[in-house]
Structure formats: C-alpha cells, structure tokens
C-alpha cells in the first residue's frame, strides 16, 4: 500500500490560491482607489512598496504567464506591428502587445500603474521596457539603478562593494520620498522590519528547499519544478502567505526525502541548468530531459530575483542595506566571472554530471557569454556541457526536433561515458 503522504502537492494548491488572491486584489485596486506600482523581478523592492499600500504588478510575470498559456504569439505580432523589431526581447513585446490589446493577462485584468519602479538589476532592457511603459501609460518612472556586480572577493560571491550598496541605499531613500509624496502615507519603518523578517525566514526556507537537491536521489528538480516554487518569493515576498507557502513546501520536500520520492522515477543523471526556460514549450522541453532520467540539482534561472541560495538575505536589523544587497545580487546582475564560479561550485557541490545551457535569443543578459562559458566548462574544466538554443515565449524559435536531437545525443554520450568509467573503475 502506498504511504499516506500528508504534504505532496499541497504547496501547489496553496500557491494557486495565493496567486488568485493577489490578482483579485489587483483587479479591485482601481475601484478601491488604491495605488499600483509596476516593478521588475530582478532587484524588486516589494516590501518597500507595500509599505505605502501599493499593489504590485510584475510585467515579466504577465509575459511568462502568456507564454505558458500559449497566448504569446498574437501579442508578439501586435508589438511588431507597433514597430518593435523581431530581434528584441519577447517579454517586452509580449507585454506591450498585451497592453495594446486590452491588458487582460491569463491571470486577470491588469490595472494601470500609479508608479513605475524600474528596478534596473541585471538587464538594460528593463530600462527600455519601462521607458516605453512610462510613455504609453503617461505614468511617473523611478529608476532604481543597481550597479553590475563585479568580483570583489571570491570567498564571498554575494558581497557587493560598499560603494554599490551606499549608492543603492541613497536611491531607496529617494524612492521612499517619492512614494510618500505620491500616496500621502508616511513611511513605516516598523512595518518594513516586520515584513523583512518574514522575507528572511521565507528565504531561509527557500534556500533550504533548493539545497535539498544535494540528496541522492534529489527530492526536487531545481529547474523544471523550482521555476514554479520560486513565484511567491518573488511576487509575494514579505507577506504572511509567502511564508506559509515555504513552510508548506519545506514539509513537502522533507517528506519526499523521507520516502525517497523524486521528480523522476529513477534519477540517472544530475545536471546544473543555466538559462531561462522556453515557457511556450515548457512541458515538451521537460519531457526531453525526463526521458533520460535527468534531474536538475541546481539552476540559475530561479535566482533572477535574488541569489538566496548563495547566502543573500533580507535583514530586519539592516533594512535598507540588506535590500540593496538583494537588489545587487539578482543572478543576471552578476558578471560572467561570478556566474561561472557559481556554476562550477554547484556542479561540484551538488555532484552534477553535466552542465546544461539553455540559451534564449530574447535575453542577451543571459545569453551573451553563454557560449564562452561552454568553452570554459568543456575545455578548461572538463565538465560535459550541453548547449541548446530557443526562446522564452516566442515559439518561432523553438525547433523541437533539433533540440531533441541534441539532448538525445548528449545524454547518450554521457551514459556511455559513465558506463566506460564504471567499467574502468571495476
């Protein structure tokens, strides 16, 4: 008789409810006369904006939702009709197409922004995107300028330079003034500390969940599953609901460890995955890996909002400083040297057999340098590396047969290599 699981799937249901609540509140905001702030995932300052009662919209999330729900194709064309090139980021075009088609995302109707907060961390397209939103909505734009992280100290990858932090903190103070002026509400430091304490606890849990992939077999797929687990830490961080979600998910993962459950029936290959997923063909893509018993034990994409797994945390005792540290440590805001170092550590620490790079045309912030990283991993480090290309939401760039060929050829070779090594050792 199968054991009676108490927690399996619970997180998923909870998440569905939470995100549903979030969107219902959002849809009601204009009628309730409540302010709405748009911001990016990378470098987001959710706790600070909620302090002033802003409802939060994340244009990237709307774009990826459209991708998953196969609603992107027409929106992309719509944006191209407006003059956007086929060669720019699909997220932007998806969002701008949406905005020019009534602004109803798969999750609900999007209210217009009272304030646009471009948290510029890791991607210059963010700025171009928000400049366009400012023009289309005629809404005020605040740019939170987060300097690109360069290596200061390889012993602590997540430690930004002091001057970077001071500069971001000065801007957070400026943002507080902007929000006070717009909402007429006073900034409440006590509330911020309370929210940050919840964020910190949720981040501990989330990092722990990701670290559970050290187990063999891994109880979690740190890419294909984790891209769903990551939603609350990015969009609802600081809330009670978010914390509840990660407690629940933590219990779910513990239970999986206890019963030896994993994302695939038999874990045969462990990989680290670099790059965002192809949302419009997510299931097909995952199936290609499942077929070989592949489990992702770590992935970079889930850290686009903050590298909690690398030790970054919000801290109620250092509210603005720690917020600045998180903003600085969005994955895409790391330079290539830091990224490569992290990937290398993960391959080692999570006992991965290979690195998989999914390179998307849309996102130069991820993709420029990935081919060089492949050179580095295969030639200098001797780590087998699979490199496949497609896109985030644009189905025109997903060539299923070609990708599958590469995936199959790679894992076949890898299986052969493992066999030979096992034979050699015997």
């Amino acid at each position, binding site marked *: 008789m199968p054991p009676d699981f108490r927690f399996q799937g619970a997180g998923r249901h909870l998440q569905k409810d939470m995100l549903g609540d979030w969107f219902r509140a959002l849809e009601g905001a204009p009628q309730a006369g409540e302010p709405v702030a748009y911001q990016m995932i990378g470098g987001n300052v959710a706790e600070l904006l909620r302090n002033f009662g802003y409802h939060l919209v994340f244009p990237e999330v709307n774009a990826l939702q459209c991708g998953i729900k196969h609603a992107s194709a027409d929106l992309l064309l719509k944006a191209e009709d407006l003059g956007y090139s086929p060669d720019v980021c699909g997220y932007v075009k998806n969002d701008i197409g949406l905005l020019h088609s009534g602004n109803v995302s798969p999750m609900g109707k999007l209210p217009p922004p009272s304030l646009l907060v471009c948290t510029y961390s890791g991607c210059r397209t963010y700025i171009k995107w928000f400049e366009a939103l400012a023009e289309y909505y005629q809404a005020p734009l605040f740019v939170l300028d987060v300097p690109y992280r360069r290596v200061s100290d390889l012993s602590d990858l997540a430690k930004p330079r002091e001057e970077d932090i001071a500069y971001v903190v000065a801007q957070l103070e400026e943002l507080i003034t902007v929000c006070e002026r717009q909402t007429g509400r006073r900034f409440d430091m006590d509330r911020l500390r309370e929210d940050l304490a919840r964020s910190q606890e949720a981040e501990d849990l989330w990092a722990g969940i990701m670290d559970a992939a050290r187990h063999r077999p891994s109880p979690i797929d740190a890419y294909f599953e984790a891209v769903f687990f990551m939603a609350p830490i990015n969009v609802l961080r600081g809330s009670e609901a978010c914390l509840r979600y990660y407690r629940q998910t933590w219990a779910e993962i513990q239970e999986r460890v206890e019963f030896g459950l994993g994302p695939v029936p038999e874990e045969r290959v462990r990989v680290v995955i670099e790059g965002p997923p192809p949302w419009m063909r997510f299931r097909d893509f995952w199936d290609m890996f499942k077929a070989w018993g592949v489990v992702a034990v770590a992935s970079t994409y889930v850290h686009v909002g903050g590298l909690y797994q690398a030790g970054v945390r919000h801290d109620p005792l250092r509210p603005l400083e720690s917020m600045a540290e998180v903003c600085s440590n969005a994955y895409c805001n790391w330079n290539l040297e830091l990224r490569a170092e992290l990937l290398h550590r993960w391959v080692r620490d999570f006992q991965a057999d290979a690195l998989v790079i999914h390179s998307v045309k849309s996102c130069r*912030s991820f993709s420029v340098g990935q081919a060089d990283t492949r050179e580095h991993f295969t030639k200098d480090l001797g780590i087998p590396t699979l490199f496949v290309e497609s896109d985030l939401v644009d189905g025109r760039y997903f060539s299923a047969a070609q990708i599958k060929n590469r995936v199959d050829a790679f894992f076949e070779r890898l299986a052969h290599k493992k066999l030979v090594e096992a034979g050699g050792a015997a």
Partner: protein
Amino acid sequence: MNLESIVAECREWFADPDFSRLRGHLAATGEHAVGLFPVYTPEEIVLAAGFLPVHTYGGGNLVEIDHADSRIQSFVCSICRSTLELGLTARLDWAEGFVFPSICDVARNLSGVWTRNFPDRFAAYIHFPEKDSIPAARQYLRTEFARLEHILERRSGRSIRREDYHRAFAVLNEQRKLLRQLYTLRSEQPWKLTTLELYTLTRAGGMMPREQHIEMLRLALAEAGARVGKPQDRIRVVVEGSFCEQPPLDLLMAIEDAGCYIVDDDFLLGQRYLEQDVPLAGDPLDALAETFLEAGVPTATYRSRRPRGPALVEKARAARADGVIFCIAKFCEPALYDYVLLNRELEKAGIPALYFEFEEKANVFDNMRMQVESFVESRLLFS
C-alpha cells in the same frame, strides 16, 4: 597638406584591421595604448594616465567572424562579435587593456568574455549611473572613475597627478571643440564637407595622438571653409541610431548619393560624448563626473538629463532637417527599442522618418539606396 590628403591620411589609421599605423606609432614612440569599447568611455582618464586612448569600432567589413562564433551567438550585434574576433586573432594585442562602459547587456557581458579570454591584460568595466537626481549618483560615478584610475596606475606604474588630468582635459576639450566646429560647418554648408570626409576625420581622431589630430582638424577646417561650390538640390537629413556599431563607409556615401545632405548624426558618439568642456578647476574626477551627468549626450544607451525624444526633435529642427533617417545596427537592442518611441515623437512633431537596419559587414546597399531615393523624392515633392 590639402583636405584630400588629410582625409586620406586619417583613413589609413582606421581602414586597416591590423592597426598598422597605430602599431607603427607605438613602436616608434614607445607609447602604450588602451582600447575603448563604445560609447561612453572616459578617454580623459586614459590619456591622463599616459596611455593613448584608442576608440575601437569592431572589424567593420574588413574581418570575417571565424573564432568569435564559438563564443558569441549570431543573434548578437556584429560589433560585439567582431571586436572579440579582432582580439582572438591577436589584432588587438597592442592594447594594454580594454575599457567597457555599461551601455547594454551585450557590452556588459562582453567585458566578462574579455576577462576570461585575455587574462594577461586588464578589462575595466564602468557603470554609468542611470540617475542624475541625487548627489549619490555623482559620487558613485566618481568612484567608478577612481577605480579606472587605479587600474591604469597599476598598469603604468605611476600615479596620475592633477596636472596630468588638466592637460588631458584641455587637449580633449580642444579636440571636441574643433569637431563641433566641423559639424557646424557641414550643417551650414554641407556642400563644402561630405559626411564621408567628416566621418573619416572624426574617427581617426579617436586613435591617433590627440595633438597631431588637433593640428589636422585645424587645417581641415580652414581648407573646407575655403572650398567653393554651391548647394545641390538635396534634402537635409539627420541620421540616428548608429552610435555604437558603425555603418560601412559605402553606406554613408550611398545615403548622400541618393540625394541627401546628412546635416547631423550620432556616429562615433563616444568621441563627442560630452556636450560641454570639462572644467580645469577643482578635483579632476569630480569635474569629469559632474560634466558627464550634466552634459553627457543623450542616447539609447544612457538615460541622460535630457529626454531623448524631444532632444531628437530639437536636433532635427536645429539642423533644419527635412527628415530623420534611422540607421540602426541589426540586433542593437537599445536602438531598436528607442526607435519606436523616437518615431512617435517625430510623428507628433510632423517630422518624416525613414527606417532601416544595417550590419557593419554589409557591402551591398542597392535596396537601401532605393529606399532613400524614394524618401528623398517624397520630401522634394512635399516641400
């Protein structure tokens, strides 16, 4: 020296993927050089440190991308790939190091590719603040400059003094002033100076010893000013969008041959990135940071104090332009995004525009030429 021979001399400096003129100069003088990736690269600091600042603009249509292909994908702008190609084929080995500005995600990450592939030389990355509303931005930029200063000092083994800065500022202020004068001359009497000539004169000035270039510019100004000739029946256009990757020279000629006078443009913008002089008083790095934030030229790659839409309209009006030609490097995302908003602004202002994309390595322009010709015709009919 007449204008033709000055231009021919200038052209030798950059129309050569092996940088022979530059190498010859460095060998003869014992000077050392530092490479600059476009757009915003504070050449002042490099010059003050005693290095020759060399603005590079990829391989144009002079190199085949061969080695860089395995490191950077084909959907990335050509200048990024061809710059790496030049590096991987040892054509940039004259450079002690390279400076990359925070203009786009491509340039940011290219700095990382550079660091890994050329470990014996430095790669400096500068983050230009996207704010000018708070004092912390100026302070931050100053710190970035100081970091570059430190890297250069370590490389050269000597520290930069205040006089070094002031000398560099004075030289580069003078060079930019003369370039502005040449631009004004072309705008006012475009039949006296072709865009190809102006472009050639400007571009060489990003590579050669600045004093030598200043002498050439003075001569060129006098020579061009003294030219006789009369205006032809052409329309006046502003070309926008080629601030980083550069259009092939034949393309510039094709635009003018198709019936245009280019009366303003954003080519080689990094050599004209400050619209005011850097003051020679006070703390040099403060002065440089302040000037950048106050008078950094607006582009798609930097949120300057002046909004770019109105700035472009103003530029077109000041140049008495009949239209704007967007001439954008393929895959250059900042320019591609900006096009949509800038074009809206032009429409509102009633300024007609033409759009096309180019690649630095292109060498056939028939199609584009036809587009420009019909744009010219429509303008001539209209006016």
